[in-house]
Structures are given as C-alpha cells and as structure tokens.
C-alpha cells in the first residue's frame, strides 16, 4: 500500500533483535524511516518501542541484525556516534542535568567555545534563546532546569533535540507531560521540521494524535512488527486491532465462586508528594477474601504509591489499615509481611528480584524465617518449598540453582509471585503483574490469580490496561490524581465509565476518553 520509493528511506533496520537479561525486547524487527515524513510507531506498554528507538539512537546495540543508514550498514558505539550521523532523540524519561541551566543543557557535550577551551556562555544563551522562542513556552535559557515544571523540562528536551539539526529526530512520547497548548506548539515545530526534510520518528499512546500528524504508521506487538501502513489508509480501529492482535488475550474465566468476609480494609491513606500536594489522596477501600479488586488508572494516578503505603514503604504516609478486621499498627515492611500482606512490585528488575542470586534463593528470600528451624535453614525444607512453587506456578527452569536473570521475563515474574506466596499472605498486592511478559506467561499469571482468589486470598491488582481490569476484576476501583474516583461492580462497569473516572482531574481528560471510545 505504501509507496515503496526506496530513495525516500533514510534509515532501515533489518531483522533487529535485542535481548535483555530475562526478556526478548525486540524480535527480528524490520523498520524504515522516511525523510520529510512523520513515521509513527505504536504499541502497548512493553511492546518494545522504546528499545527499538534506543537502538536507532545508539543508546543500545542490537543483539542481532543490521542498521542501514543511507543504504550503508552502520553500527553505533554510543549515542554520540548516532548524533554525529544526524540522529537526535527526545527521550521518554527526561535526560536533563537538573543542576545545570537550560542553555547548558541544550549545548551539553557540544559546548560553544571561544578561544581554545573557554565556554562562550553568552553565545550559548543567545542561541538557546532562539530555539526556545520557537517553542513559545516562556522558558529563559539561563533558568536552572530543576526550577522548571515537568512539561517545560520536556520542551527543553525537545529544544535540545531540535538544536542538533538532526536528519532523523526520534520523539518518544513527547506529549506525555505537555498541556494542550504546549502540544499544539510541538505540532507546529514538527510541521516545520518536516518541511525542511527531517525524518521524524514519533512514538505515542494517543491514537488520535498519531492519526493527526502521522504519515506512515508501524505497529509493534510483543517485540514484533505486526503492521505497517500509510496513515491515510487506516483508522483507529485498525491500529487497535494490530496492537492487541486477533489472538485476544487469554484471560482466565471467572469461576463464579463467592467472595467471603472482609479480609483487608484501608482507611484514608494519604501520602504527601515531595513537590507539594498529595500523591495518594485519602484513599479508602476494602477487600473480601477471594475477591480480585482491580485498581485502574493512568500513569501517575497514584496506584503504585498506594500499594507502597499499604506495604509500609513510606514512613510519612498516613491512614489506617486493617487485616481481617484487626488494625495493623506495624509500620515497617517486615512486620506487615508477617501480618499477611505481600507485594508484587511493578519493576521486576529493580524491586522484585535479586538478579545475581539463584531462582531458589529468590523464591525463599522473603520466607526464610518460616522455613528455618530457629536459625538453621534445612536444605530439605527449602528444596521442598522451592519445588512446590516451581510446580504450582509452572515456572520453566531446568535447575533452581540457576541464576534468576537467565529466565525469561514471564518466568521471572512467576518467581516474584512465588516469593510472595511463600510468605503465606492473606492479601496480595500486584502492581502491573503482566507488564513486560509474553502472552503465554500472561495467561499463566491470570490463571494463577484466579486460582489464588478461589483459595481465599484477597487480591488487589493495579493496571493501566483496560481489557485486563475489565476481564479479571470482581470489582474495579479507579484512581486519578491520587484520588479514588470510581468504584464499580463488574456487572455495572463499562469501559466508557471507567475511562471517564480515570480522567477526572486531568487536563487531557477529554482527549483520552475520545480515543478509547472510538473502538
């Protein structure tokens, strides 16, 4: 469908694969970038978009495959290499030096000098001012980056990338922190760049935004490219179909068991934010034994923070929690785990696993005092506990003495779940339990959640995936801006109502709702 005029293609990825310890992030992807066009890349969380872009920008090297620039094979040793060849990138996570000024940030690593080494600050400020003026955001080049709002920082990041005079400019979710007017400014800048022949690679979750400014669109799912089209030929339906795939997710069916008595209750949980305000704002909820309560919300809605408060990870949090009707006075994680709470954290690598230890050590880490007889860990008892979990959760591992980092993402996640289950919790908090794992493992995780609920565990799980929360939950709680903005029974919940509740108190509410109700 797309015009295959090869001379338009400035950069081409051929059969690129990238493997991280534990996950295959990108699988044999082929991707083309055309000049003078906005090349859109979409996909769900963890589909591998950011990894693919980091490969183009020289931040990561592909494990296998080729990068062709102007038809010639290249390999980037560093992002400096890529910049030298005219590839600039606006990163999703801000890569600014907050202790330096805006101008210094924009010209970091290519400082304008006068004489031999002396940095010409005046000239830098003047030139930075030109770029910033085009963004019309009222940012002065001599301001410190740490004094700017997140949205303004994002614009500085964009100004920095634009100032590179790049031939290829990658934007990874550039609008995620921008207000509506700032988005309009950004789009004008993009049009301008396009007219000058710059190839833009644009990543975003906001579908109607993509349709508006995109020229071609490429869809990524589970690390593989599943569709490539000209934007003229498609609609949001098509994108969603490619993103989710025809093999709709295998959610375990509800088995119709009735939840029991209340096992957990949180009252008025609040957590102050460092920058003022509350990141969790007086949230109260209750959970029955055998019930799965889904907590839905967008990024930054306060889901993870709520879970952290419940686990006692923030000493400055307020509010009360009860387990089986008894108030939990203990404020530290260790003793809350003993009272029957357990958390599956969102960030598996950083908070879930000790990646250099074995599968067995990771599984038993939280429950050693249970397994140990006074202070002696009996190898037999430990082995038994490990084998039980490996069998119960279908963890694919040849030998539990293997390092946990050698497992696939899905199996690593099962190890984290197994670790929590070995503490024999009454309430399980799961933060994005299906993030970054493949379809098969997701189905296993969902089945496990159902089974645990049937066994009488109360499960609280946070997700930003609408399908997931609709299919798995007995009840759905919606959070927005730190507040609980909705509570639905499964029977009465509709996608539209949930999306609307999740957008309360957000500036970009209407646009999000619009995008989701289209399909």
């Amino acid at each position, binding site marked *: 469908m797309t015009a295959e005029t090869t001379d338009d293609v400035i950069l081409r990825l051929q059969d690129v694969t990238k493997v991280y310890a534990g996950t*295959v992030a990108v699988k044999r992807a082929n991707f083309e970038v055309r000049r003078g066009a906005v090349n859109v890349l979409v996909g769900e969380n963890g589909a591998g978009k950011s990894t693919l872009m980091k490969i183009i920008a020289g931040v990561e090297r592909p494990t296998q495959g080729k990068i062709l620039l102007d038809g010639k094979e290249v390999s980037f040793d560093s992002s400096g290499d890529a910049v030298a060849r005219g590839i600039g990138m606006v990163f999703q996570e801000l890569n600014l030096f907050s202790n330096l000024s805006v101008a210094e940030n924009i010209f970091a690593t290519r400082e304008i000098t006068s004489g031999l080494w002396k940095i010409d600050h005046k000239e830098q400020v003047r030139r930075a001012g030109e770029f910033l003026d085009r963004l019309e955001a009222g940012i002065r080049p001599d301001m410190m980056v740490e004094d700017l709002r997140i949205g303004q920082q994002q614009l500085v990041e964009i100004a920095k990338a634009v100032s590179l005079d790049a031939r290829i400019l990658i934007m990874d979710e550039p609008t995620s922190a921008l207000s509506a007017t700032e988005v309009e400014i950004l789009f004008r800048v993009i049009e301008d760049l396009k007219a000058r022949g710059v190839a833009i690679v644009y990543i975003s979750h906001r579908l109607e935004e993509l349709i508006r400014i995109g020229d071609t669109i490429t869809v990524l799912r589970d690390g593989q490219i599943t569709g490539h089209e000209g934007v003229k030929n498609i609609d949001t339906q098509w994108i969603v179909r490619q993103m989710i795939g025809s093999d709709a997710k295998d959610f375990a069916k509800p088995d119709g068991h009735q939840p029991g008595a209340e096992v957990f209750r949180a009252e008025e949980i609040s957590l102050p934010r460092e920058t003022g305000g509350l990141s969790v704002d007086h949230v109260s909820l209750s959970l029955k034994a055998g019930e799965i309560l889904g907590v839905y919300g967008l990024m930054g809605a306060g889901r993870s923070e709520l879970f952290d408060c419940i686990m006692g*990870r923030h000493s400055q949090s307020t509010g009360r929690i009860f387990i089986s009707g008894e108030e939990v006075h203990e404020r530290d994680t260790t003793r809350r785990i003993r009272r029957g709470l357990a958390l599956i954290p969102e960030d598996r690598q950083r908070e879930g696993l000790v990646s250099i230890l074995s599968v067995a050590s990771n599984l038993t880490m939280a429950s050693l005092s249970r397994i140990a007889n006074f202070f002696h860990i009996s190898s037999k008892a430990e082995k038994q506990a490990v084998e039980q979990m490996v069998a119960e959760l279908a963890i694919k591992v040849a030998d539990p003495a293997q390092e946990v980092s*050698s497992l696939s993402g899905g199996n690593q996640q099962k190890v984290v779940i197994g670790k929590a289950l070995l503490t024999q919790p009454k309430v399980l908090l799961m933060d994005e339990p299906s993030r970054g794992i493949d379809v098969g493992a997701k189905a296993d995780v969902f089945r496990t959640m159902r089974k645990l609920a049937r066994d009488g565990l109360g499960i609280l799980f946070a997700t930003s995936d609408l399908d997931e929360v609709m299919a798995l939950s007995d009840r759905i709680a919606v959070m927005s801006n730190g507040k609980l903005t909705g509570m639905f029974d499964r029977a009465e919940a509709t996608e539209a109502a949930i999306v609307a509740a999740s957008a309360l108190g957000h500036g970009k509410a209407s646009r999000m709702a619009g995008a989701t109700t289209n399909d």
Partner: protein
Amino acid sequence: MTDTSARTAAAAPTGGSMLLTLMKLRTFIALIAVIVFFSIAAPNFLSTANLILMSKHVALNAFLAMGMTFVIITSGIDLSVGSIVGLCGMVAGYLVLNGIDLQIGYTVYFNVIEIILITLVVGVLIGAVNGILITKLNVAPFIATLGVLYVARGFALLSSGGSTFPNLAGKADLGNTGFGFLGAGRILNIPVSIWILIVVALGAAYLARYTPLGRHIFAVGGNERAARISGVRVDMVKMFVYMFSGFCAAIVGLIISSELMASHPATGESFELNAIAAAVLGGTSMSGGRGTIGGTIIGAFVIGILSDGLVMMGVSSFWQMVIKGLVIIVAVVVDQAQRRLQSRVTLIQMAKIG
C-alpha cells in the same frame, strides 16, 4: 558484532564452558601454582615448621578478610579494621597491666578469659558504631569507616601516650597469667590461632549458607530495594556485618598482642588493605552480592604464601609489593572477563530460543 556473537554462540557449549570453569577455579589454581612454584624455588618451603609459621601469618589476614567479605557482599567497605586491631590490642594490654581503677581506692584486675571477652566486646562495639553511622546517619561506608579508622587509631595511641605496653605475662597473685596461650599455645601441635580460625571460618561459612541472616546478607548486596520489599531488615543486616568485622579484628588484636606479649598502638596499620585484597582475590565482588568464605580463605592463603615465599627466596620487599599488586589486578580482570563471557553466553542462548 553479529559475526563475533555467532562465533561465541557456536563455541559456547565446548570452548566457552571449559574456559568458564577454568576461570571460576582461578583462585584455587593460583593457590596450587604458588605452592608448586615455591616448593621448587624456595628450599625448606614445605617443611612442617615453615608451613605452621606461614599459616599463623595467613590466619591473621584471613580473620580480617572474612569480616571484610561479609561487609563487601552488602556493597559496603570497612576501612577501620586495622585500627580496631591496634585499639583492641591496647585494650587487652591495658587490662592485663593496669586493670580498671574504680576511683575509690580499688583496682579491678580481670582474669584472661574476662579480658578476652571484654576486648571482643570492644571490637563489636566499634563495629556497631560503623553500622550506626552507615544505617541511621546515612554516611557512605567508605567515609564512615575512614573516620572510625582515625578515631580508633587515635584512641590506641592515647591509651599509652604512644608507647608500648610491655611484658603482658600477668601476675600470679592477680590471677591474670596465661595471656600468651592465644598466640603461642598449641593444641595437638597446631597453633591455637589456627584452631580459632578454623572455628570462626566454619561458623561464618555456616552462617552464609544455612541461616536466614546469611541469605539476607547476599540479598541486601544483590538488590537492596528488592530485599527491603521482601521484608529483609536491611539495617539490621548491615549492623551485623560491621559488628562481625569488628569482632574479627578484635580477635586479631588479641592474637598479635598475645604472640608478642606486648601491645603496640601502631599494630595493624594498613591491615585493612590486605584484607580487602584477600576478599577480592577470593572472588568477592566489590559491587556486592557475590563472595564466599572459602574463596576468601584461599585468597588470604595466596597472598600470604606469596609474600612469605618471596621473602624466603630473598626477593626485595619492594618487588614483593609490585608482585602482590599485579596479582590482585589480574584476579579482578579475570573476574570481569568471566562475568562478561557468562552473560554473553546466556544472552545469545536466549536470543536463539526467543
């Protein structure tokens, strides 16, 4: 890039794994190598008398290195052990000679067992100070223990005004004789210090392997955040490792004073560096999470045998330092190469499957 990866992958099952095994056994191979080398190059090297003498030398460093191993596994460092050795030696010497003056006309003299216990407690308490600085006051381990290094050394010098406590034989009428047993005594013709080393080493190895605390030490070093979320009491674990390190240093202070029958306040200077070297040589990773007591003991033996053997061969002490330094650097370089090889083999295998 692609080509090399492909080749490594092909070579992995045979050459790669052979190389990996060799690399993993490197400290052991180094130990055998130095023993074989010196038994040929240095006469009398293998005589019983020499072996026992060397073991006594090695034991001192091995104690410190064991304490250091646990500290390094939690991603910390303990620079204060040398000073604790000096201060604890002085404490023991002071108690033997002067007892404690109660300021009311009485002076309490302790027997040797009590003196040993008090000295050990002093070592543990200094370790606890390190631990509190690091966990409660959030001082970086390097800085905290550097500070304690100076403070402890200063107190050691103050305790005697810089002079030595001589002749610690004790007096029969005060009931504090027998202090020399630790350093000079033998049981079954093996020095007491070696027996103590065996007991402490077995205890430490057991702790590392078979107790929740030992596992938690590794978890804290491997990923402190994950350990905390799993309910590990991170602060307590850290307190313990510094206290254990102080305990080991106190043992060394006692043994040295007992051997010499005198306490000198400068004893133990730069011992911390030898201890770190032994731990690293034995495969303890400075970034935390990895290390074994067995490896550290072997590391201590390699360093000890190397320096004693070179002395026996008449190599100048200046060259000894150069050689010791090179051995440590080579050990760490091989260690890094092993990690890289290992992770590459795993990744390539996963790319193939995935």
